[in-house]
């Protein structure tokens, strides 16, 4: 099997944004791997660097941002330092991305067909009629009824959920090896969310695509992902299989995140909150960036904690990892 070479191996990736107030390290030494057919959940609050990580992989970080160091090995080939032309050939063909807001991602003034056919024609030489066929098939695959007519429609004639299906269909057109999904269900209501999750899971299994699912919603990750990376202030603070991380969070931040999700088992008990707010990336505390909000922090936390392995496939960036099971 191809297990030897993971679909994607990100190694010590650093993406910085040069601003007038100084360089902002939006992604600060992130490493993870995804293999074919597996789903990685990238979890964190707004501004934790998860979207920038996604854009870095796509080569879509625009100035003043840039990848400062690290490697992004896509099937063994380093994407960092590839020319724009080489990157363009991969984008949409081998690596696809789906965005958060389906109302904004499709061009409002172009027909769905145009937007799908151009994606095909950007990568392969294909006639109009054949491209039309493939586009129709792709729409059918993600569960859009009467795809032939829908191809002629404009984005505003679709509901939010249907638009996201179109975006997914576009991402799937070339059967990519990797899909980066940046909160694709956040803007949708819950029933649609479930359907989209199901479709994504089904299709990715079917064509063996590796999936990076970026979200702040732990319940989505729980039902979808195989592995999870929790990000805080540009760094991964905890990494492991979904069951291990969600059942027995080791990092106080992960524990806080899980504690702030409402649950039926704790009805009547006030929700736990993480005190304070996400620090500005320009003004991070020394040492552990979570220490000012952490109940377990002490003098040791002034030094920056390293990623330590707790058990096989499970790493945490904390001097005082939690050991008890989550409530």
């Amino acid at each position, binding site marked *: 099997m191809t297990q030897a070479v993971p679909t994607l191996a990100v190694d010590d990736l650093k993406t910085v944004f040069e601003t007038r107030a100084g360089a902002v390290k939006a992604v600060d030494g992130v490493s993870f791997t995804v293999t074919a057919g597996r789903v990685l959940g990238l979890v964190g609050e707004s501004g934790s660097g998860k979207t920038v990580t996604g854009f870095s992989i796509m080569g*879509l970080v625009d100035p003043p941002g840039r990848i400062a160091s690290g490697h992004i090995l896509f099937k063994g080939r380093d994407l960092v330092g590839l020319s724009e032309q080489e990157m*363009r050939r991969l984008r*949409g063909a081998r690596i*696809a991305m789906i965005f958060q807001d389906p109302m904004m991602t499709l061009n*409002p*003034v172009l027909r769905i067909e145009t*937007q799908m056919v151009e994606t095909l024609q950007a990568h392969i030489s294909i006639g109009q009629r054949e491209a039309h066929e493939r586009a129709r098939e792709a729409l059918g695959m993600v569960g859009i009824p009467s795809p032939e007519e829908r191809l002629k429609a404009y984005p505003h004639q679709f509901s939010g959920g249907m638009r996201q299906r179109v975006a997914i269909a576009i991402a799937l057109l070339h059967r990519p090896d990797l899909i980066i999904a940046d909160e694709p269900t956040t803007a949708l209501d819950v029933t649609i969310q479930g359907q989209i999750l199901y479709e994504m899971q089904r299709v990715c299994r079917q064509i063996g695509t590796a999936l990076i699912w970026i979200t702040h919603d732990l319940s989505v990750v729980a039902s979808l992902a195989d592995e999870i990376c929790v990000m805080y202030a540009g760094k991964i603070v905890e990494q492991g299989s979904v069951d291990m991380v969600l059942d027995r969070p080791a990092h106080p931040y992960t524990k806080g995140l899980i504690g702030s999700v409402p649950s039926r088992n704790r009805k009547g008990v006030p929700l736990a909150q993480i005190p304070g707010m996400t620090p500005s990336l320009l003004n991070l505390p020394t040492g552990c960036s979570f220490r000012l909000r952490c109940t377990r922090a002490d003098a040791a936390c002034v030094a920056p904690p390293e990623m330590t392995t707790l058990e096989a496939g499970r790493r945490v960036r904390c001097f005082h990892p939690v050991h008890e099971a989550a409530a």
Partner: protein
Amino acid sequence: MTVFIIRRLMQSAFVLLIMSLLVFVGVFAIGNPVDILIAADADQAERDRAIAALGLDLPLWEQYLVFLKNAAHGDLGKSFVFNQPALQLIVDRMPATLELAFSAMVIAILLGLPLGMYAGFQPHSRTARAIMAGSILGFSLPTFWVGLMMIMVFAVQLGWLPSTGRGATATVLGIKTSLATWDGLAHVLLPAINLALFKLSLVIRLSRAGMRENMLMDYVKFARAKGLSMRRVIFVHVLKNILIPIVTVLGLELGSVIAFSVVTESVFAWPGMGKLIIDSINRLDRPIIVAYLLITVTMFIVINLVVDVLYSVLDPRVRLAEAKA
């Protein structure tokens, strides 16, 4: 769509009626043309005869009703000065003004769109700054002064281009135009650039703003994530979006270019409608003033209608809104 157009045409007729009343009363208030038209040494009998001949002896409301009755038959009155139908005089001069306005618009779009888009795409580059500085000049320098400078440099000192008149014309599709001969083109170039300068700056500003705004949109990121080339993203995805506001504004501007090319036409002695209206105002030639203003209003109405139709072609969301109405 048809319902929409019919309703707009009915509204337009009403607007024209109101406008004619306002113009009629307004022109009446400016002054008495008899004082200018009739020789100072004419005796009272001659004066009375002239006044009666021009129909100025009737009270204002009666004059207006006579005007309306004639207007309904397509007669907007006879020029006091030329003793020819006012409509005829204006229509004769219209091609000259239209070709000037058309040339100016083409220059504004063909130059403005690429310049503005470049300035929006590379907003911090030196070229972009130069383009924007130039557009400020285009906005703020008075047209007549720029026109005079252009005549001085290109016509007088360099002698490259003629400074006045329309040059040779040729008849294309029954319309006499100077755009069909080289001599005519040489004549139209300077006044067209002069007239285009303001619109050009406007197009530059609009397309730059649209470009900057749209480049940040998610649909651009998504289009790039699909692996499209930057060229396709800009010239298909972004361009079609920024054209929407530009078409709207330019449509309105086209009306004003045609109606108010007065300054440019005066500076370059261009025999168009603008020059005619200035002369007529000086001589209080009421029928021409009234006819000119009504034609201008009609022009604005037609242009607005065309813009609305064009708008719905560019923006599919507009089409739907109308279908529901």
